[in-house]
């Protein structure tokens, strides 16, 4: 049972969250300059490491904030959590 430390609500059980996938993905931005390839990569390609992984979670049954979670995909240990618009390691 993974426990995630929501930057606002504190440590909560994972049943309160939904998973949002790879947070290394950088949104290409809605601009004519962006290439189709960038959209393709954003939409379809994923970091999929065995070990620490940066990912989005949504505290949907909580404060409804999207957060970034660094989590080990082998041990499920949660290494860090930050608000989704912040880089990991830096708190609000």
């Amino acid at each position: 049972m993974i426990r995630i430390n929501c930057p606002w609500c504190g440590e909560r059980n994972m049943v309160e969250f939904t998973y949002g996938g790879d947070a290394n993905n950088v949104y290409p931005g809605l601009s004519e300059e962006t290439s189709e390839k960038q959209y393709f990569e954003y939409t379809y390609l994923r970091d999929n490491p065995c070990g620490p992984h940066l990912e989005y979670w949504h505290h949907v049954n909580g404060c409804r904030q999207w957060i970034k979670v660094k989590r080990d995909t082998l041990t499920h240990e949660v290494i860090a959590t930050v608000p989704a618009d912040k880089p990991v390691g830096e708190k609000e």
Partner: protein
Amino acid sequence: MSRYSALEVLKGGLTGQKHWQRAWRDPEPKQEYDAIIIGGGGHGLATAYYLAKLHGMSRIAVCEKGYLGGGNVGRNTTIVRSNYMLEDNAHFYEHGMKLWEELSQDINFNVMFSQRGIINLAHSDAQMDAFARRGNAMRLNGIDAELLTRDQVKEHLPMLDYSGKARFPVYGGLQQPRGGTARHDAVAWGYARAADMLGVDILQNCEVTGFDIHDGKVQGIQTTRGAIKSGKVGIAVAGNTSRVCALAGLNRLPIESHKLQAMVSEPLKPFIDTVCTFGAGHFYVSQSDKGGLVFGGDLDGYNSYAQRGNLPMVAHVLQCGMALMPAIGRIRLLRHWAGVMDMSMDGSPIISTTPVKGLYLNGGWCYGGFKATPASGWCFAHTVAQDRPHRLNEAFTLDRFERGYLIDEKGVGPIPALH
């Protein structure tokens, strides 16, 4: 090596079963092979078998990091079916179904393929329509399918809740009578033994740790049992696809690794005679020949390489189970475990050449790859041997995502956990 037959077993009975030899050898790795398959799961072993049998290759090795069959082939819910709607899937899986029907004889190993049928339950008219769409497509593709009414479902599955108290009553179901289950371990062992008999070296405890690639062409691999040369290397490592491909410089694939749990009850006398899936929650069930009810559910929902799951999904599966078959309340769960799935972006597999010459990829099986084992091995062997796909797998390329030729049976888009 003795052929398996009833006579041999009887003979053994009189001599203390002493005459049986190893089902497969335990050879030392050779310096070089004509082809190496990475992954001693169902797909890897089947590939090696078909390479040797159908493509006249003899110097073949299968590298397995642990014990043979210890991956998903040894931990799945063993459902075999070809009830797909989309053309590319339908033909591929139906080819597989035909191979299944002859597999035990072909490899001289009883894989206990039991065509007890599979029923997908529907809980609304809309769901019946969606199933009809699939069933009609199956029929038109020459695949068996039946649309069952509620009463017909009841004949097959009398233990479901028809009481009127069911939150999601049964409306009917889509049945594929030729679908069923097989003895998962036997599939791995049978292919291993058959491949071994054709001279394939099965190298257990041999983890691939790197690739030798020059000028965009593969030359060999590094393993925990030393370097091995080969100009053709096929990757069939299921949940570990991203990790192994990364060793070959193929980073960021259209794949996420997720875990899926399965569970089994205490052994019971025959309780359910077909495979059944719930249409209003993630739950499917069949009974193993040993008597255990084998249940599966949804992914735990987050990337994971742990072959163990968490309790909420177990609880969810059994909640579905109780909702569908209130008779299981007093039956006990015996064991639950998990496997790591290579979930692709459209839920369909990849059997493909790669940007590296001589390197081939078989992956993206999501939680449906057991039934594909024979067809996947068959097509992958063709792809490896001929350096191009067979017609049956030509849609399953790695570059289809970029080109937009997706094979999205569920229509949920590039969210792997939803396929």
